[in-house]
């Protein structure tokens, strides 16, 4: 396993600046997730590390050594795509063994067998080794694709939305397994996704990418709880963070220069009799599944996630308070004002 560093990397496609002066250091054994909307430059970044694209400026290094001029096949990285791209005419065993049998390696069949069976056990596909790869379910196919990368024991894994073609249940199952596997192997993984659930559940650190630039890097808790800008605050959170006009908050509590105040839905307190509620709002929607309330009153719309078991009905009136310690303040240019 090895660390990966990008220093001042820029990549343009004609007029489009796909990756803009990106500097990033991924530690040995770290699970790093690049999160961003489509077109943010995530996949380009991954392809730059793999050597499938060449940077216009800057240096990509793997294991402390500049890799710009190293051929993709010599970089010793494994790429896992959204589409499994297995060989349909081969069995699971032969699909897994395929990278080991390439002429650049000189494994004996005994060594191949040992590695393939170990990886298959790890991924719970040991009983499927004799099956044709086309006779597998989607989840099993993606396991085989991950297994094919694992058997090579590469220095770095690059993963491009590997779970996005699976249904919700399988995605959760594979997510948990992938994370355990990464811990166990101490693998360095650079993983790109637009799915915030994958980002916060898998990552040691998340990098939020927007228009080719990193807008924040940190642990999931840092990025969610302590966003550096309004853009970063809005990238994570489901339902999204509430942005309210500063006039809604007691003026004495507002730092100077505040243009917007934000609060996470789960930090909004509903009908707490201990506190003096500053707002009285009407329930517009209530979803028991997500414990979610959409509230409005006058020009204010607030989304709250409540832990209470009460069943609310449309039109109910509730008292709402916004605790001072949960408020985030932003200036007019979207930068966070820390207090």
């Amino acid at each position, binding site marked *: 396993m090895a660390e990966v560093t990008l220093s001042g990397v820029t990549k343009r496609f004609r007029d489009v600046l796909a990756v803009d002066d990106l500097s990033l250091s991924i530690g040995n054994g770290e699970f790093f997730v690049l999160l961003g909307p489509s077109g943010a430059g995530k996949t380009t970044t991954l392809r730059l590390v793999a050597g499938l694209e060449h940077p216009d400026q800057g240096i990509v290094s793997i294991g402390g050594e500049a890799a710009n001029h190293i051929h993709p096949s010599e970089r010793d990285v494994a790429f896992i795509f959204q589409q499994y791209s297995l060989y349909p005419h081969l069995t699971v065993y032969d699909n897994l063994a395929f990278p080991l049998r390439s002429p650049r390696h000189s494994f004996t069949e005994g060594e191949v067998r040992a590695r393939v069976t170990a990886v298959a056990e790890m991924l719970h596909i040991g009983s499927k080794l004799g099956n044709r790869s086309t006779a597998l379910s989607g989840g099993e196919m993606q396991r085989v694709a991950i297994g094919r990368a694992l058997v090579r024991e590469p220095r770095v894994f690059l993963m491009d939305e590997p779970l996005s073609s699976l249904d919700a249940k399988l995605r*959760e199952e594979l997510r*948990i397994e992938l994370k355990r596997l990464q811990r166990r192997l101490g693998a360095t993984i650079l993983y790109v996704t637009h799915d915030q659930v994958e980002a*916060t*559940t898998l990552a040691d650190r998340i990098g939020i990418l927007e228009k080719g630039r990193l807008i924040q890097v940190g642990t*999931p808790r840092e990025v969610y709880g302590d966003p550096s800008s309004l853009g970063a605050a809005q990238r994570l959170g*489901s339902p999204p963070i509430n942005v309210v006009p500063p006039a809604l908050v007691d003026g004495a509590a507002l730092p100077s220069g505040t243009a917007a105040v934000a609060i996470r839905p789960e930090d909004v307190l509903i009908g707490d009799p201990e506190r003096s509620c500053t707002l009285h709002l009407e329930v517009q*929607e209530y979803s028991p599944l997500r414990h979610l309330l959409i509230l409005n009153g006058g020009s204010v719309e607030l989304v709250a996630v409540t832990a209470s078991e009460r*069943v*609310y*009905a449309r039109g109910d009136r509730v008292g709402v308070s916004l605790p001072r310690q949960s408020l985030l303040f932003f200036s007019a240019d979207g930068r966070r004002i820390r207090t």
Partner: protein
Amino acid sequence: MSEIKLNNLHKSFGDFVAVRNTNLTIGNGRFVVLLGPSGCGKTTTLRMIAGLELPTSGQILLDHRDVTWQRARERDIAFVFQLFALYPHMTVRENIAFPLRNERLPRKQIIARVASTARLLRIEELLDRRVGGLSGGDRQRVALGRAIVRQPQAFLMDEPLGTLDADFRELMCLELRKLHNQLGATTVYVTHDQSEAMAMADDIVVMNGGEVLQAAAPETIYHLPETVFVGSFIGSPPMNFLPVDAPVPPGATEVRLAGAAVPVSRCLQGCDKALLGVRPEHVVLDDDGRLRGRVMADEYLGSHQILVVETAAGVVRVRVDKNHVVPLDATIGLTFRVERTLLYDGHSQRLLPSESALVVRKEVAHG
């Protein structure tokens, strides 16, 4: 506007039973969602209501009128498909007017109805655009427009939002629900997506294997799933189900899970093989909890986290506060909120009567 009633509706394709002896009443003006995994029979049911598929046996009543053998066009029902099925070479206006032209309505009336439909869907400024150049959301609005303009007795929708991306889908859910509140037309909506169902439905009908497992308000479906399947299908993550060690006598207030004594809501009916069902938000971390397990994973989701705990009785998912930090591989104790525990018959997989079931039913009913 109308009521739809299915009596013993049955449909088989050769040996395969797609819909099994289904009874269902869809009240006038209700928004009812048929929810289930692919192959559960929800689309076949919808197509039979529409008249696109004929039942093998049974009866379909539309406002007490037997329409079982009527042609689709005689039923006065509008169908909205997942794929927009618009005429790409026509403008939005022509697409919406199309069904009215077919019915040979007077020109003036067509113009008036198209205008009011466009106003309702807020697509007035798109009326003269070609459909080919529109975004997915706008196309879906046009498809809805073509259904609404006919002023049918009922709307049938088959995963109409399936092709839209997640953010937009949520928005369209809200819009569809608002539209329903304005029109008040009986709507039957098919989806496999539980969040769409929860966001829009007055009633949810959960189907699996061609059978209706439960038909009730979203709150009831969530808090009181009638079967193990419903509890596992609804909720993210789903309800935890754990096997109970020994037969449960009637009146029991405690069961054993892999040897650990766990208090439960008083069971009103005995059962020789039972499962305990509890939602992740009703499991509490408790050092004194008899049921103990190892934290296998911590799924941090920002607003909250889901701990995946491996116990001797099986895996238990626990919803905990976002600020709580529990180290991986730690051994922890668990207790369940007694009044939220449910017991299921291990053979029939059905909910057993208990005090908590009664209490929850009351709460859900009265808000």
